[in-house]
């Protein structure tokens, strides 16, 4: 049975700003859905509408088959983890975790049992008497998750829960969240603007752009077959190399003098793209084009080479190549590259849709 259903959901704020025009999404039980997109695209708005913190101005929201549009947040059986954790500063960790149960009239003995069980699961046993200000960022994060977990809700909502942590802790907490969610099997809606977080956590991803879902699918679907140039650029790091180009009878024309041969029925303006990891260094005679090297980023396990296409045009087109292992090419020298046609991504320049 599908757990959470968004039917033609829309949000227009009081000031007339339409943050979400219309959105359809069906979330299966136990699924981990990540909403991802640039700042201001409406991720938090959508999540807060599901939580009941923001009114729904259009469409229906169903949780376990019941329409909950008008229900108070408390009556939706959801739990939310906020970006700033929103821990009650004057209550101990125990107080924070038990507050929701207490408000629902749970008996003291049951509360103690549940809180202790969750505290053990999250490694918070030693910290139960502490106040939030006496905790580290990572510990606060855990308490916020604990507070959400004790109530055993139908749906977990996360709004950028890791963005206040340092990079290393973020990776660790990411894993923990994923493992916990698998273990508990609770349906989860998770908001982030970090595409690595999105790719690693999600069963399915929703890429939002200006309130519109550009594409919904598994991380690998989105990586292999991005539906639009926006998704292509957003998913994958470093971003896909995208060029405005033309499809002609001679193939893809990146500039007047540079053609990539490809038989294709379509003619006209396109956006042509290839991921940095799909470009390969080859001998000059096998190459599709040459890159003039402008900068090299050595990361140890991989090397990113930034440069411009040498295609005779005055202003070179910027391109990134991702090479496995250490490399040390000379700046301003030429790198001969091949771009295998199986890895091309071609979008219509006008409709912005994949061809």
């Amino acid at each position, binding site marked *: 049975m599908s757990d959470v259903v968004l039917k033609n959901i829309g949000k227009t704020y009081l000031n007339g700003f339409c943050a979400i025009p219309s959105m359809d999404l069906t979330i299966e039980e136990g699924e981990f859905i990540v909403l991802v997109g640039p700042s201001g695209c409406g991720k938090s708005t959508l999540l807060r509408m599901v939580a009941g913190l923001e009114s729904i101005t259009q469409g229906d929201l169903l949780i376990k088959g019941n329409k909950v549009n008008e229900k108070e*947040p408390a009556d939706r059986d*959801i739990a939310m983890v906020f970006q*700033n954790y*929103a821990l009650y*500063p*004057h209550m101990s960790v125990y107080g924070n975790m038990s507050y*929701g149960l207490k408000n*629902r009239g749970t008996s003291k003995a049951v509360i103690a049992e549940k809180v202790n069980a969750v505290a053990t699961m999250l490694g918070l046993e030693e910290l139960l008497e502490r106040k939030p*200000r006496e905790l580290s960022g990572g510990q606060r994060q855990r308490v916020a998750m604990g*507070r959400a977990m004790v109530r055993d809700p139908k749906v977990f909502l996360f709004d950028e829960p890791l963005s206040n942590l340092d990079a290393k802790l973020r990776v660790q907490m990411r894993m923990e969240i994923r493992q916990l969610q698998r273990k508990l099997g609770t349906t989860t809606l998770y908001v982030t603007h970090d595409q690595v977080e999105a790719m690693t956590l999600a069963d399915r991803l929703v890429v939002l752009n200006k309130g519109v879902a550009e594409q919904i699918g598994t991380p690998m679907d989105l990586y292999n077959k991005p539906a639009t140039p926006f998704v292509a650029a957003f998913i994958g790091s470093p971003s896909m190399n995208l060029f405005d180009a033309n499809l002609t009878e001679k193939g893809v024309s990146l500039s007047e003098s540079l053609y990539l041969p490809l038989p294709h029925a379509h003619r006209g303006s396109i956006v042509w793209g290839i991921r940095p990891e799909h470009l390969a260094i080859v001998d000059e005679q096998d190459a599709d084009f040459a890159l003039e090297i402008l900068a090299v980023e050595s990361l140890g396990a991989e090397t990113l080479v930034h440069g411009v296409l040498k295609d005779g045009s005055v202003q070179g087109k910027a391109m990134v190549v991702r090479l496995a292992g250490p490399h040390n090419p000379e700046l301003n020298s030429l790198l001969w590259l091949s771009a295998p046609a199986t890895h091309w991504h071609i979008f219509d320049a006008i409709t912005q849709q994949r061809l």
Partner: protein
Amino acid sequence: MTVTFPQKGLPWLLLLPQLLVTAIFFLWPAEQALEQAFYQEDAFGLSREFVGLENFVYLFTDPLYYQSMLTTLVFSFSVAIMGMSVALFLAVMADRVIRGKLTYQTLLIWPYAVAPALAGVLWWILFDPSMGPIALWLGSAGVDWNHYLDGNQAMILVVIASTWKQISYNFLFFLAGLQAVPRSLIEAASIDGASPVKRFWTIVFPLLSPTTFFLLVVNLVYAFFETFGVIDATTKGGPGQSTNTLVYKVFEDGFIGLDLGGSAAQSVVLMAIVGVLTVIQFRFIERKVQYS
């Protein structure tokens, strides 16, 4: 930042007006009172006699003085608690208003600009037993209002008249305090199943406690020392001793009873109380409870 002046004299010159005002209007009278407290003076101020601690002994054996202390405590706590409750209520309402917020808030700040004596006169007219609109309305509702005869009613009147002005001040602080409570905490509490009333008492009110404590001290100090004008304009300490607070008694005993020595001794006691309250307040401000 440190500013360095080229000449040594300039800072002193700039400070001079403030220092003069302090000396003439605070230090000199305080010194006079301190000295006066150890003398007995005749009613015309022509001769005086050193009497040591006699004024203080007399003061602390006078049952009227203890009664005045009790009156002051009742009065001050009533003013503080009433002023803060009403202000908090208004601030909570103002915090919720979305349209016309500024108008509403400005209106609530106005009373603060009215001089205490003027506010006193205003309430005096409103509650005048024979023609005051509120008194007449109370009369028609079956309450016989006459604060010239009924000590409790007199107390209620001075409390209302004194509270009125303080509400604006408290309101501003409470409103700022409320606006500093992170929205996400309220949202988290509502997801946690707390009703609006419960959210207020279990989350918002505890977070306001630094503001509340600060205002309690400020309001007590106000009720103790700055309500002379209100009392003088409404009840003049009466009927009987029912609204004769410590500060009003200093004036009454000194300028009406012409017991200058006794009045000075009372002033010295008041100075000590101010000192203690100031220390409490500074202590508190220093290690202000901070939530982040």
